[in-house]
């Protein structure tokens, strides 16, 4: 496919994944998996449980070390970088089973993410210099902006773990946005949501994408959500890509219907 270097020749692949491989105890969880996401695109990844979707996210964000393959972000090889460096480059993610800082307040969940990109020295922190106080104030303002945007503005002082499930999901999204990402990897945002909440989520994700100029890769089981929001869909099974296409192409594909959707296309 030849997606070349970022920016120079008009190539616009935000993320390029080449022949990614990972085995766990002899089981090939991800087997030579390649894909790319263009700038501004929303890519949906679907597939049955155990297909290796979350493993792909964990390999891209380097929570797992790949056995083979390469990952490029904006043309830069990032396969060797630790997770925190990837976050600072602009790759944010959410987790399938929610990973909030539960004992911290809603506000602190967001300011912590903001402050990783806005630094001051420990001595500035100890002696509370002007710079320190200004950065802390900006972190709070930015956090409140995000919380208001996602409808959590009233809850800033509540411990994150005390929020109802749906709000925890939104908080995790807000935290991911607080690092000012260019690429957002979302792992099953619709898990455990009812159709009404899914509707809201679709609207929220569209707004978020527009406002923060994001490229999104989303793993999702809820067909209503993934078909609605993705520009392109990639179907995975047994650690491999079985097909790729627009939502309407995927919906019609026989292999997909058999492997994933069951008898009845949605």
């Amino acid at each position: 496919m030849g997606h070349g270097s970022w920016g120079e020749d008009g190539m616009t692949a935000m993320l390029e994944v080449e022949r990614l491989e990972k085995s766990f105890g002899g089981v090939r969880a991800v087997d030579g998996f390649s894909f790319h996401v263009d700038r501004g695109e929303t890519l949906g990844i679907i597939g049955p449980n155990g297909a290796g979707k979350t493993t792909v996210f964990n390999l891209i964000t380097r929570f797992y070390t790949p056995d083979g393959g390469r990952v490029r972000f904006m043309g830069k090889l990032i396969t060797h970088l630790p997770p925190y460096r990837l976050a600072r480059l602009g790759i944010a993610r959410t987790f399938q089973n929610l990973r909030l800082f539960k004992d911290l307040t809603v506000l602190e969940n967001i300011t912590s993410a903001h402050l990783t990109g806005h630094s001051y020295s420990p001595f500035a922190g100890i002696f509370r210099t002007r710079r320190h106080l200004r950065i802390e104030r900006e972190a709070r303002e930015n956090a409140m902006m995000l919380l208001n945007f996602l409808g959590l503005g009233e809850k800033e002082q509540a411990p994150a773990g005390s929020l109802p499930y749906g709000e925890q999901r939104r908080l995790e999204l807000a935290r991911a946005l607080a690092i000012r990402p260019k690429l957002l990897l979302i792992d099953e945002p619709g898990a455990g949501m009812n159709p009404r909440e899914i509707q809201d989520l679709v609207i929220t994700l569209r707004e978020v994408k527009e406002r923060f100029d994001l490229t999104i890769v989303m793993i999702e089981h809820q067909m209503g959500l993934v078909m609605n929001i993705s520009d392109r869909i990639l179907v995975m099974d047994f650690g491999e890509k079985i097909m790729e296409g627009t939502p309407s192409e995927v919906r019609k594909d026989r292999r997909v219907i058999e492997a994933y959707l069951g008898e009845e296309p949605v």
Partner: protein
Amino acid sequence: MKFFLESRRLILLAAGIYIVLKLLFSFGIVSEYIQQITIYVFIVVLAATGLNVIYGYTGQFSLGHAAFYGIGAYTSAYLVKTLGLDSVFALPATLLAGGIMAGLVACVIGIPILRLRDDFLGIATLGFGILVRVFFDNSDRISETLGGSRGFTGIVKLTNLEITFVVTVFLLIVTRNLISSRYGLFWRCIKDDETASASVGIDTTRMKLMAFSYGCFLAGVAGALYAHLYTFLHPSNFDFLRSIDFLIIVILGGMGNIAGTIWAGVLWVGFIEGLRIVLPSNVLDLRWVFIPLLLIMLMMWRPYGLMSKKKGNG
């Protein structure tokens, strides 16, 4: 700079306590022994605050805190003795040296062991504590001054109420400011969820190392104050049981709660020394039984600390 921001009440309180103590001390109302114990309370609070940073805030379980306390004590005592720095004015420098030595050692051993989590880290720090104890026991082979298992004798008494007070209050404010800065926030994030911390861009390895080194620095300074208070150091002062003492104070006061650690430190020393007065001498050693019993009861009814409003739910 706003170093003392939101510290006015604290400073006033500290000044009040200082005046009361100074009056009690200088009019001979309290005995020499009680004076020494009072100063010791500050030292214990300072060292325990270090462990609170490491364990209470950052969630790094350490069973070797007394080793760093000991490293600070031996470093300062050795410097004062060999360089002949026996004036109170040199003390801040040797306190700092003791703290920095403890912090550096913490940094060096922290790089390999801080990747371990929870109980594994506990065992690694426990091992390091034993190692340091054995080192102190055999230290006379390196330098006769250190005294080995006979103990380090003839240390100049330099620690007084003023210096202990100023150093402790200053470092407590430094710690509080750090805790409320982005560094303290990152430490609490790491304690809560290390994976999520990395996902938002926190350099978890570096932040854990920083918390560990800083906490051990505080222990080192406290140890140096201790050395020049009691003028005698023995390896047994810095063994595993002493590490447990600090741990109990942190848990008693509540994890991630500096005010709690202060109260718990006062209670702890008061309790141990109080029992010394109350108990008849033939059962005196029984007081070390009360402490573990207290810990067991605490874990059953107040696992988040005596000062915490949060109760255990079994």
